[in-house]
């Protein structure tokens, strides 16, 4: 894309210095925006501090065997997933709020296109999601989480990439509710979904059967699959298609909700 803008064809005398390149422009903006998010202490507590604390409480040093590793590893993956989805939910949700609260109009007076804004926020969401994953995996590595090397790599990748599903979830909740409290609602629901999704405490029986249908179950089970091969703590077994189907179904549901919320918002003009 052309980096400079020609202004020489017009008859005004005011001249302009050449602009820096489009990529440098967007990168500079994205870095400032990323730094703004990272220094929000409250947000970072819920994204990084709380999941790390939960790992230390529930998983620290627990060497009981699970699949190809131990319980510490199992809890570590779960908590990294919890932190990562909190991050993507909150970044995606606030991005919608920023646009509706007038900052979007300010950005509309710059050369940045709306699609570039979406790309910037996606990169920021994934960057922030990587923080709890990296930190909790490092803590795990030093506090007795054990598993095959492939378990570590695959789990980290699945947790990280899968968390993007919850960026769609964040978008959907804010677009449907459209209030400043909506980000809080979205994050709060994550906690409930984490319990139902077998992320915090191992469940069994009827609750587990219901939980299998909730949005965080498939994602967390998939992230632990390299470690557990599908065996749950209560001794039941999930074939690989089950968590995959769960993720696919919720991806469709969240997308439909987000599109519906967006359409509804436009009609209200």
């Amino acid at each position, binding site marked *: 894309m052309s980096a400079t803008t020609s202004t020489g064809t017009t008859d005004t005398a005011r001249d302009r210095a050449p602009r820096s390149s489009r990529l440098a422009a967007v990168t500079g903006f994205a870095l400032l925006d990323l730094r703004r998010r990272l220094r929000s202490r409250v947000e970072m507590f819920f994204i990084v501090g709380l999941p790390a604390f939960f790992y230390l409480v529930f998983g620290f040093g627990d060497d009981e065997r699970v699949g190809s590793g131990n319980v510490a590893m199992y809890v570590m993956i779960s908590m990294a997933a919890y932190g990562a989805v909190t991050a993507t939910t909150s970044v995606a949700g606030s991005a919608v709020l920023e646009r509706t609260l007038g900052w979007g109009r300010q950005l509309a007076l710059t050369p940045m296109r709306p699609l570039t804004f979406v790309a910037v926020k996606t990169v920021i969401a994934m960057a922030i999601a990587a923080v709890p994953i990296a930190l909790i995996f490092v803590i795990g590595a030093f506090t007795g989480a054990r598993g095959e090397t492939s378990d570590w790599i695959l789990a980290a990748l699945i947790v990280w990439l899968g968390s993007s599903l919850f960026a769609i979830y964040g978008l959907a909740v804010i677009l449907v509710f459209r209030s400043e409290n909506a980000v809080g609602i979205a994050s709060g629901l994550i906690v409930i979904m984490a319990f139902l999704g077998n992320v915090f405490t191992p469940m069994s029986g009827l609750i587990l059967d219901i939980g299998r249908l909730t949005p965080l179950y498939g994602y967390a089970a998939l992230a632990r699959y390299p470690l557990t091969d599908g065996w749950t703590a209560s001794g039941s077994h999930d074939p690989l298609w089950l968590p995959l189907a769960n993720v696919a179904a919720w991806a469709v549901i969240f997308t439909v909700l987000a599109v519906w919320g967006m359409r509804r918002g436009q009609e*209200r003009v």
Partner: protein
Amino acid sequence: MSRTPAIHATGLRKQFRATDGSEVVAVDDVDLTVQPGEIVAFLGPNGAGKTTTVDMLLGLTTPSGGTVEVYGEAPGRAVATGRVSAVMQTGGLLNDFTVLETVQAIAHLHGRRDRVDDAIERAGLAPIAKRRVQACSGGEQQRLKFALALVPDPDLIILDEPTTGMDVSTRQSFWETMRADAAEGRTIVFATHYLAEADEFAERTILMKSGRIVQDGRTADVRAAFGGRTVSFQPPAEFVHADGIDPDWLARVSAALEPLGISDVEVSSASLEAAFLALTAADTHELEGADR
């Protein structure tokens, strides 16, 4: 030499569908040409269509009809190249950025990081550059939006109610900055509902009402048509009682004035200023008649 107008709009029209399904015409058949270097005020009450017009000039709203060009280009294009920028009434800021970061973020997007210091300086924000937006007063946030508008070094700057939330002295220094900018050749278009701001600052005033332009001309001429002249006089003391002016006498005044073409005689209670002057000068009441 024919110059490309800063703004050229013909038959500009915008209608919305209200929540009850009825059509609302916010801007109705507006023709407008602004030459480079002009200072133009859009004056009108709330709901006159000023903000909708501004949105169309900035490419933020698509007109329902008519054409609009900014420096011969589509508005969105002129915005993207930084030829036009604006202080919008509905623009918003991020609370957790500092003042400096906000300007830097927008400067990055314009590819004009070299303009950060100048914009901060001109908007008088240097002393509070490190402050969080959250901690800024309404007037300071308004100045920050002004700094953002200065970032692309635009040829045309559009200001929608720019002095909202500013105190008197800030307001004054804001207009001084604008005057200096205008002297350098920047075209300035601002919307306001303060007659005084248009009067003091604009060479040309466009009066809008219910989406239409009802007056467009030299500010002094528009003022004469809009404001008229007010003649006031004092009633004789014997007709003035503690609870107001003797109604019979007032009726006689109205009857006496009617043959002169004067209508709408009204009695206004004195303004605080007038009361102060009256109390410190003479012990009389005042009757005002306006010849609209």
